[in-house]
């Protein structure tokens, strides 16, 4: 709660997670939108498919998130027209970083996780802060439940340090089914202890065959 009269943001809550595999990527987010102690809706998607192999999940201030997604989708369309192909995930990752830093002094209140397949078909996850600092990782969590989920992912997926030489693959050796099972379990756990996470979980899986969507119920209290 800010005492200043000029606080223009609000946090609509929610959590986003992404896990990269050898040839797939799982991007998941809950569907609850809240403000203060109230629920605005139980059925709102935080996930945006920006390109056929690139999916963005964002939590934070929905007003800014809607604007950000719209902005990126428009830029992707322009890219398609200019280059006669869809944007790759690493290219979108850089574009998102630049878009966020562009508003360095009036930021998008959005905590982003970008997931998809890179140009070689391997899973990739990019994690961001509010002003565009990003890093390619094997997995990430952002949002109100991120501090509950990240330690569990660290324990189960243990990404190798980027400082190690030779460079080791950050993606998990788990199968697609195992990764989805882990994501479901980890969200069910976060829902138990975070009041802003719950209602429904939307899971998007990207692999070379395309994009698949799945929903499971979470606690509604």
């Amino acid at each position: 709660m800010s005492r200043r009269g000029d606080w223009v943001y609000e946090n609509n809550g929610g959590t986003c997670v992404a896990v990269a595999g050898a040839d797939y990527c799982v991007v998941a987010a809950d569907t609850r939108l809240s403000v203060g102690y109230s629920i605005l809706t139980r059925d709102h998607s935080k996930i945006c498919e920006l390109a056929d192999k690139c999916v963005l999940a964002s939590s934070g201030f929905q007003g800014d998130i809607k604007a950000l997604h719209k902005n990126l989708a428009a830029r992707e369309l322009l890219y398609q027209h200019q280059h006669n192909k869809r944007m790759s995930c690493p290219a979108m990752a850089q574009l998102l970083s630049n878009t966020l830093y562009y508003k360095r002094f009036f930021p998008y209140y959005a905590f982003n996780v970008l997931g998809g397949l890179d140009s070689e078909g391997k899973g990739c996850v990019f994690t961001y802060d509010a002003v565009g600092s990003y890093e390619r990782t094997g997995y990430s969590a952002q949002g109100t439940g991120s501090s509950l989920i990240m330690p569990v992912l660290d324990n189960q997926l243990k990404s190798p340090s980027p400082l190690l030489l030779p460079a080791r693959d950050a993606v998990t050796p788990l199968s697609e089914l195992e990764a989805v099972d882990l994501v479901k379990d980890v969200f069910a756990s976060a829902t138990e202890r975070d009041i802003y996470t719950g209602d429904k979980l939307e899971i998007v899986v990207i692999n070379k065959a395309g994009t698949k969507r799945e929903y499971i119920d979470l606690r509604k209290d």
Partner: protein
Amino acid sequence: MAGAMDLPAKGGFSFDLCRRNAMLAEKGLKMPGFRKTGTTIVGLVFQDGVVLGADTRATEGPIVADKNCEKIHYMAPNIYCCGAGTAADTEAVTDMVSSQLQLHRYATGRESRVVTALTLLKSHLFSYQGHVSAALVLGGVDVTGPHLHTVYPHGSTDTLPFATMGSGSLAAMSVFESKYKEGLTREEGIQLVSDAICAGIFNDLGSGSNVDVCVITKGKTEYLRNHQLPNPRTYASSKGYSFTKGQTEVLSTKITQLKPKVEIAEGDAMEE
């Protein structure tokens, strides 16, 4: 303030430390936060007595600290009290008044009355000028009949046929205002209380988990702990988790001997 006369402490709130707290706050000291229960608590009067209800979630900010805490506190065999606000305050004030009531029962040889509990609570809370953050729904049945009261942190009280308190009070009150009528049966009363608590559980983020109910009638009290469990865990990985030795990397090991040599001396057994 060395006066000529040193008046004895008359009771009521001592404001000595307020200047010091204000000075510290001015210097930039942040007051520590309290754990609140972020709650839905309700009570209603039905034809044979009163029914009290509460959710079971305790929060510390946005985190659930306790998924199944008890918010309906014992005051006397025929009087129970639901508490919202700072958990420590509701616990402490209900325990204290419960003890006072028991001593009073021994002194008078009679069953405790709800108005006695009410007066003890309100005078304590008033003397602390709202700093004891306890918002209570007090209900019970005594020789005078069934009673239901709400008590606010500053010490004011209301006497009502149905009442709700806590962050989920608006959600619960909307249910009461729609469905309450005089002369409800026991089953109707329990159902209405459960519905009101569920409204708080599902629509208020500060309330959640299970429904606790307490039914008090003349001569009998039933504490229905976890009367409803409408929030089971939705998904559990069938694979499970294993934490084998060696899975967590040990970076370094250092063993320090606390005592180089331990001597065991023969002697008599310790006296109990």
